[in-house]
């Protein structure tokens, strides 16, 4: 039997990663982590994660950039803020997870066939374009992007229940002043003169 070694040497670690995440999340408190595990035990999604929140924090501090950004963990964060309100070191763990998601998208190393980052990106795209999100169109785009037609068929009973109770809107929602929204987002992107 071949023994797989999982060793990373110090020189292979990214020494700047810790500072980048601290800055991006606005969370200097990461350095104060005492590895108590309150976050992991509070997390409703921890059982599904490849690295628990506690491990992720330790890995950020040690510079395991690739492992952290390729991990499913940030995408499995349901944003319930349980860890954040309980952390004895006041680390805004949910905000750290958001910072990791943004960085993984920016560096294009997020799990691209995984539906959650795809949904977040699609929803953000729709609403920065129209100012409002439209659930049905979002779901359609999601199944197209993740190449999952079966998922769409599985949604049929739900669609039916929503229609029966008058809770499905097929309308493509949009704000009136899209021009203003475009101007605002352009200014944000470019910077004001």
């Amino acid at each position: 039997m071949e023994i797989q070694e999982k060793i990373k040497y110090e020189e292979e670690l990214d020494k700047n990663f810790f500072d980048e995440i601290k800055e991006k999340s606005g969370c200097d408190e990461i350095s104060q982590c005492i590895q108590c595990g309150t976050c992991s035990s509070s997390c409703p999604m921890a059982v599904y994660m490849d690295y628990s929140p506690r491990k992720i924090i330790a890995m950020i501090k040690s510079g395991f950039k690739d492992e952290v950004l390729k991990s499913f963990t940030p995408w499995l964060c349901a944003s319930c803020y349980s860890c954040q309100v309980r952390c004895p070191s006041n680390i805004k763990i949910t905000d750290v997870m958001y910072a990791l998601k943004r960085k993984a998208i920016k560096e294009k190393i997020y799990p691209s066939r995984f539906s959650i980052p795809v949904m977040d990106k699609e929803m953000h795209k729709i609403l920065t374009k129209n100012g409002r999100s439209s659930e049905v169109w979002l779901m359609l785009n999601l199944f197209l992007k993740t190449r999952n037609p079966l998922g769409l068929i599985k949604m049929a009973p739900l669609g039916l229940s929503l229609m029966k109770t008058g809770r499905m809107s097929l309308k493509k929602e949009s704000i009136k002043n899209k021009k203003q929204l475009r101007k605002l987002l352009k200014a944000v992107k470019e910077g004001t003169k």
Partner: protein
Amino acid sequence: MNEYIYYPGCSAKSNAKHYEESILPVFKEIGIKLDEMEDWNCCGATASLSVDKTKAAAINGRNLSIAEKADKDIVAPCAACYLTLKKSNQFLMSETEEAKKILKDLESAGCEYKGTVKVNHPLGLFTDEIGLEEIKKKVKRKLTGLRVACYYGCQVVRPYTDFDDPDYPVRLDNLMKAIGAEPVDYSAKTRCCGGSLTANLEEAGLRLNYILLKEAKRKGADAIVTICPLCLFNLEITQNKIIKKYKDNVKIPILFFSQLMGLAFGIPKEDLGFSRSMISLKPMWEKLGNGGTNE
């Protein structure tokens, strides 16, 4: 008392129409005028924050600016809208270089924002601003005998807990008592329903919602009462699959707290969106008799 402007968010216009249909008459009954924000845009919820923090703050700044121009504070019944607007408000006023730049961008697009707007959840307004004594005065038929599991979920009580406790909140329980219902000791009241993950990750979604439904059943609740559209949605759509998977009959109606308030205030049940429930409400109506006993 301050004046308020209503920020519906996307859910109240689609899968959670009954939230809007019940919360607006309730505010009217209490005597608070609540006009919908003119040309509001979506808050971006957890999605925009995961993609672009600056743009997320900017689009929410636009909403805050609309409220400021109207000189009103925001009422946001959706938990995700409430949290996102509050988070953006705090971030925009943080006086960091990043925030100052966004404020300038807002100004250049005609959405100047000075930071005077407060973001409110209706629950906090009802219990802490208006007060339970006032609420009690409006009650025309007490919901005597109705046992409810008060489910707060995550984003109203965490992390910005300016009106209740993040782990063991009590405001909704007190409000339900004030209208004559009987809150059960619901230990899962702030456990997560999976939020937007539930629709995508079925296995996790079913497990999380099973915990919530089972605990409500175990405590003998007739209905789960929520303050969040996504919680209501997840708890409703997962029931059939959970019953099949775990072979446990956890069927239970999921209602908005405003629907029960409206009922207690004597608003006809036909006007409170009860027909939009995916779960049969028949056992509940039978228990309430004529939709609530007369005082």
